[in-house]
């Protein structure tokens, strides 16, 4: 049986714009992945617990409200506390380039800004999950 890549797609915080998250969820499904879509208004605790229970390989965070500098690091913190910082975490939405170094320093693998083709995101996941498995 082929191993499936499992991705949690989550919208942390109060931002209600889910067009991007839903497009990504569909694109990942069409690329053969299993997407656990958790919907709006997720706290970092909910997101991390979901990823743990679902044995997620990846967490994709979508946010357009500007609260990413608080919410993303909080997710990384909780993952670390739970010994799960091997999960690949990346983000998308409205995130200024100048914030990216800070987010990466907290463990976010990549930020895919507006206009990123879904194929780039799919390839990124496939590349990194492969590497992760090899390192296990």
């Amino acid at each position, binding site marked *: 049986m082929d191993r499936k890549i499992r991705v949690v797609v989550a919208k942390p915080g109060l931002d209600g714009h889910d067009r991007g998250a839903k497009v990504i969820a569909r694109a990942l499904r069409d690329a053969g992945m299993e997407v*656990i879509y958790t919907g709006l208004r997720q706290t970092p605790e909910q997101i991390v617990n979901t990823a743990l229970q679902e044995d997620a390989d990846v967490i994709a965070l979508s946010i357009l409200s500007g609260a990413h500098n608080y919410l993303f690091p909080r997710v990384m913190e909780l993952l670390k506390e739970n010994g*799960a910082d091997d999960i690949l975490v990346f983000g998308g939405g409205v995130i200024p380039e100048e914030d990216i170094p800070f987010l990466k320093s907290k463990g976010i693998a990549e930020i895919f800004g507006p206009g990123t083709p879904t194929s780039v995101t799919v390839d990124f996941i496939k590349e990194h999950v492969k590497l992760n498995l090899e390192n296990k």
Partner: protein
Amino acid sequence: MIAGDVSATSVSFSASDAAYAKYATLAEQCKAGNVRAIARLITGLENEERAAYAALNRFVGNGAVAQVIGITGPPGAGKSTLVDKLVARFREGGRRVGVLAVDPSSPFSGGAILGDRLRMQRHATDPGVYIRSLASRGALGGVSRATGAAVQVLEAAGYDIIFVETVGVGQSEIDIVKIADCVVLVSVPGLGDEIQILKAGIMEIGDIFVVNKADRDGADRVVREIRGMLETQYELSKGEKLEAVPDTLAGRLVAAAGEMEHHADVHAFDDKIPPVVKTVAETGYGVAELADAIADFFAKASESGSVTDRRIARARVQIKDLVAEHILERIENGPGATALNEMAKRVVAHKTDYYSASMLLLHEILLQEGAGGNDEGVKT
């Protein structure tokens, strides 16, 4: 291939040392309730890793017994919202609740969007609740084999009530019967549901019938029709000869009775008519009644022993399926395949016949001992 001592409680599988050890460790951690271990073991089962299945042996003698409730029905019936409310209710009662939510995989890409847990996310941070989404991964019956195995994992981890939610479309929800002690069939008014329910076999598998979104027009009519069909079915099962009243759904049931497949060895139709409960999952209306109906079911069933009977019946089916699979696998791979090939050549050369060939192969498979594979076994 190595055959084990059939009097042992387990057989070895061919799997690498490392894989085997890994899943054995995970299984031990599961028993301690480790969330990540549970998750990883379930993943291994989903990926059909032998070592993961082998590790299930670690739960033998655990003593954990969960009540397993299947929730099935068409898309849009409100199953996930109902499960969310039921989880809350049973949590209030101090139970530890597991949820397995199964959604279909895309036949095109093999991927899936698993969105059921979205409705239950308020429980995501409750350590007394474990929610796992599963994709059907091509299983035609709506539940993959991993689902049944995952139930065992959650059970061993201490979740004493487990909901398995599946999409029932046409015949495909039948497989839930192989996993659940109690099957709850959810319908909604206005979806032309009565027809769905009538399809062969579906009426028979329900232990509790729910009409959700009961605040909609037509809800009472659906309840009446379901009750009518259940009563008719009950009478049929008693061997009553009934007049098929034309143009009623009950009438059609009678007419179809002759063609219905009876899943007699899996699902015993107890000597009562299943309850029909009205709910409005969104507001919580009827959820208490439903929870009570579920509790009732288990109380009565354990008295009459029928839950145990069912579990035995289910286990028989599972074992049968697995035996068939093992055998098939042995003659499709490795030395068995070679043997099969030989047999086939001999049949064609008129050196033997099909029947003898099959018996010979079976004999060889069951009793063969020899080189190849690993020699790890788990003895208890």
